[in-house]
């Protein structure tokens, strides 16, 4: 009997064991799919069955849609480019969509989800804040409105239609083995693409190029500091020598007329609306600052962090950040125009770019594209070349609304109480309950902060329908300056310094777009929202900055202040230091004087790692150190600085000393004042560049003050330490910072300063676009810093020249370019093929020899697409 009971117990145990195993296999561990699916060993089904996309090579095929057919040639080349030649333009864009999906499907899925506020539905609750942020930006709504306004008989509509069709045909025909691994792990089945999705991604990118929450934090500077301090620390125009892109000398016509600049008060706190108490307003502003942390580009990088918990997607997605860029155009000998461009965006794998050469009747363009967008974004065709840098004007304005408990749900605007428009959003959360999220909108923006009835809204030019896709398709087809400017007229939001060069020898830079105008107040801070400070229009195109065929022989932009003093309109104030621009101007002047403006000298300029700030600080530092009190190690460090040329090469120990010293000098000078004026963490201390934010401290506005004082006002009152009531001058603070630096580096790198190589502490990392540390590439020892033309921001740089291109338009087939990573998002194929070239400063010829003849269409006589 007992034997029988024992058998029954064992049988029961076996059955329970099976049940437990099945539970482990079938119950998902959020956000992952159930293990039975993820680890399925079936052919093509689970992760074990995945196959990479096709590798390098060319194929010819016939594309048939409905009753139309077209001949298409596709070549995948080892330089990171997919080349498509079609004898019908619709087939070209169909293939581009199809191949983009084939090589970058997960990227499309995640970028769309991010833009439309749907990440939580894929990766779970960790991304709710991001979803709330992008829902608030109304990306989907604006994108749909843009689609509704498209002209259905336009070239753009045709391109979009077939591009979308191509993506969806790939998704439909894709065998299970080709579903990206990252989607298999998450158990996500891609849904069809739409034109709206393309414009939603456009919104994501334009936000990364133009979005800011600076006015929220700067309000605290105005509130806490006396006017004298604001004027000294935060001048609205840089105090040091600058090379404005559109200087008065290069184009005086844009300085005529009367703008709004003279009516603004850029150093005063704006009045608060009636009934709004300052403490509550401050809390609302802090609330809004915290809200912006939902945008991953505002968050610190995931790189270097250890995965918290079991959710590997907790930090998705690597923020799309624009830290700066360079472009320039030069008039070389015999009327030849050369263009160079290197936009400094997040360097990821897969890259945010994908290389394409697109050939169809009337079109042969080569360059890089954002996946999800038809055409080429930056590149050249046989007639023109173009590039872009962020112009960094202020297109985000913040308002505090006048509200009242007696008018709940309303705000006072232009003399009457108006209800907030409320949009009900549902955010689906994987592994959790749906969230009902309310987006509220006023006449002057969307609500981004609300504390105890004090409501702060943000107006952004991107909150209104805008069609920047049309711009790039227009560029792709442009044959001359007129075509280029017609296309540029579509570009409104993420305003860029668009460099232009053509085969007729024309060269210039244009920064057209929507620049809001307000009549009064201080746009650098939160404005009153009752109507008097709203946008009243935009700067007329005729008054917008541009420079064309300047007598100087070249024009350059590197995110520096765009215009000279005296430009009649307020454009913004938060620009880069201008050190890269200074260095570019120096290099181009030198090459021009030597009659050596060529592709090779432009390459040398793009790869220049001389930090111009050393020209400003180093002589003063060495002078101060020669008389300062230093230890033995300090003396040895000084010797290195004395012999140094200011180049941030990987083997330079002086570069390491200088970098850390400058950070420390900035900190020692400004931090006491920021603390003295009660700038706190919630108000942005250590977050915003003007409050000694991370890395951007190195190239933000304060560094220009410091350069100015160090060179010309060494006894400035701002070297005083208000916390310790200590009288200091620049020499004192420089030596103090130097001794602190030497002590720090000794602990970090050992006792011998000659071994403090820059490459030991400064790396480049190609971060996984999906925020997955296991899929990153690098780190690599890297030259350069945040101030060099060949930029590598921070100590572990994930931002840098995401694309380098140089085109001599007299010989456009000789144009060169390179981007890091490769065509594919699949780590098993074409994932990291171009990185070595990029890292070592090599370039690919954008139209290599040996391609099928159709790829030389419009370049060689008699060739057809």
């Amino acid at each position: 009997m007992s034997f029988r009971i024992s058998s029954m117990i064992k049988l029961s145990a076996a059955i329970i064991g099976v049940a437990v195993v099945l539970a482990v296999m079938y119950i998902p561990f959020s956000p992952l799919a159930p293990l039975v699916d993820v680890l399925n060993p079936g052919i093509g089904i689970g992760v074990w069955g995945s196959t990479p996309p096709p590798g390098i090579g060319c194929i010819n095929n016939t594309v048939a849609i409905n009753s139309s057919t077209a001949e298409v040639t596709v070549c995948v080349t080892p330089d990171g480019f997919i080349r498509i030649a079609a004898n019908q333009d619709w087939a070209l864009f169909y293939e581009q969509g199809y191949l983009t999906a084939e090589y970058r499907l997960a990227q499309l899925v995640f970028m769309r989800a991010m833009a439309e506020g749907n990440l939580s539905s894929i990766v779970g609750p960790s991304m709710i804040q991001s979803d709330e942020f992008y829902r608030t930006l109304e990306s989907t709504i604006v994108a749909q409105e843009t689609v509704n306004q498209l002209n259905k008989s336009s070239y753009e509509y045709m391109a979009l239609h077939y591009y979308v069709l191509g993506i969806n045909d790939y998704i439909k025909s894709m065998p299970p083995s080709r579903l990206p691994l990252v989607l298999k792990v998450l158990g996500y089945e891609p849904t069809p693409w739409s034109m709206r999705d393309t414009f939603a991604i456009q919104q994501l990118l334009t936000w990364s190029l133009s979005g800011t929450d600076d006015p929220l934090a700067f309000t605290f500077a105005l509130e806490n500091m006396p006017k004298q301090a604001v004027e000294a620390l935060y001048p609205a125009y840089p105090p040091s020598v600058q090379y404005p892109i559109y200087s008065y000398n290069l184009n005086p016509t844009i300085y005529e007329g009367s703008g709004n600049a003279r009516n603004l008060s850029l150093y005063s706190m704006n009045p608060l609306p009636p009934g709004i108490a300052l403490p509550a307003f401050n809390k609302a502003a802090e609330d809004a600052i915290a809200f912006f942390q939902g945008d991953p580009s505002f968050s610190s990088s995931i790189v270097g962090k250890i995965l918290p918990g079991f959710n590997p997607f907790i930090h998705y997605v690597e923020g799309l950040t624009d830290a700066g860029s360079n472009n320039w155009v030069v008039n070389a000998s015999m009327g030849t125009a050369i263009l160079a461009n290197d936009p400094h965006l997040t360097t990821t794998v897969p890259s945010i770019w994908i290389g394409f050469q697109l050939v169809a009747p009337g079109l042969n363009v080569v360059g890089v594209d954002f996946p999800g967008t038809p055409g080429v974004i930056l590149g050249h065709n046989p007639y023109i070349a173009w590039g872009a840098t962020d112009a960094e004007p202020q297109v985000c304005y913040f308002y505090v609304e006048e509200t009242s408990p007696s008018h709940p749900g309303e705000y006072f605007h232009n003399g009457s109480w108006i209800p907030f428009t409320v949009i009900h959003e549902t955010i689906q959360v994987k592994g959790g309950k749906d969230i009902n999220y309310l987006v509220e909108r006023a006449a002057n923006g969307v609500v981004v902060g609300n504390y105890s009835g004090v409501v702060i809204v943000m107006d952004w030019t991107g909150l209104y329908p805008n069609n920047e896709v049309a711009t790039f398709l227009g560029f792709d087809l442009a044959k001359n300056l007129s075509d280029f400017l017609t296309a540029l007229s579509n570009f409104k939001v993420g305003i860029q310094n668009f460099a232009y060069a053509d085969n007729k020898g024309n060269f210039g830079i244009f920064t057209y777009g929507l620049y809001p105008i307000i009549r009064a107040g201080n746009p650098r801070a939160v404005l009153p929202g009752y109507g008097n400070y709203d946008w009243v229009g935009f700067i007329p195109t005729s008054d917008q900055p541009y420079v064309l065929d300047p007598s100087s022989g070249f024009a350059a932009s590197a995110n520096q202040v765009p215009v000279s003093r005296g430009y009649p309109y307020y454009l913004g104030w938060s620009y880069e230091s201008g050190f890269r621009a200074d260095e570019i101007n120096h290099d181009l002047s030198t090459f021009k004087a030597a009659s050596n403006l060529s592709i090779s000298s432009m390459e040398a300029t793009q790869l220049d790692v001389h930090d111009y700030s050393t020209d400003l600080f180093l002589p003063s530092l060495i002078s101060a150190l020669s008389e300062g009190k230093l230890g033995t190690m300090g003396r040895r460090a000084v010797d290195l600085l004395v012999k140094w040329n200011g180049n941030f090469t990987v083997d330079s120990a002086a570069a390491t000393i200088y970098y850390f010293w400058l950070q420390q000098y900035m900190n020692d000078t400004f931090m006491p004042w920021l603390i003295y004026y009660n700038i706190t963490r919630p108000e942005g201390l250590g977050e915003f560049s003007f409050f000694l934010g991370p890395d951007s401290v190195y190239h933000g506005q304060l560094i220009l003050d410091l350069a100015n004082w160090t060179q010309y006002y060494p006894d400035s009152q701002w070297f005083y330490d208000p916390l310790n009531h200590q009288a200091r001058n620049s020499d004192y603070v420089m030596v103090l910072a130097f001794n602190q630096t030497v002590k720090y580096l000794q602990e970090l790198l050992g006792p011998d300063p000659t071994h403090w190589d820059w490459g030991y502490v400064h790396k480049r990392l190609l971060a996984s676009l999906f925020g997955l540390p296991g899929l990153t590439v690098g780190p690599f020892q890297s030259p350069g810093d945040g101030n060099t033309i060949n930029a590598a921001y921070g100590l572990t740089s994930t931002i840098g020249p995401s694309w380098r291109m140089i085109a001599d338009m007299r010989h456009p087939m000789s144009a060169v370019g390179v981007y890091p990573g490769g065509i594919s998002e699949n780590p098993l194929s074409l994932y990291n093929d171009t990185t070595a070239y990029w890292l070592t400063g090599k370039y690919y010829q954008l139209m290599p020899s040996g391609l099928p003849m159709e790829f030389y269409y419009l370049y060689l006589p008699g060739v057809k697409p």
Partner: protein
Amino acid sequence: MMGKTRIIALFIVGAIIAMALSVVGYWGFMFIPMIPMGYAMRSRSIVSLALLGLAGAVGAMASILLNPYAIQDGAVTAAIIGAPGGPAIPLALTLTLAFLNAGLGGAAGAQASEVVKNKRVGKAR
């Protein structure tokens, strides 16, 4: 001798069935055919668990190796989920689950056989 041959034959058949189920993606159901096989094996449940579990793991592994990229895929998967050691952890997890799924099915079959046998013995008494 006969018993040993039967066990080897059942192991091979079990591995083939496991591979077939794996290839078509139904590896979660491996335990089902293993129940009658465990019953037919007429061995102790622990032996059935070990042998048929091993058959399940072998079948799953064979299916995995049909894809030449599989091991690299495993390494990428490990990188995605943040697991160290390349493909080792995903592979170990997969094979363990296949082993337990199939083996516990076999053990249940073997134990059912034991129960039936005991019942008969009881009735005979």
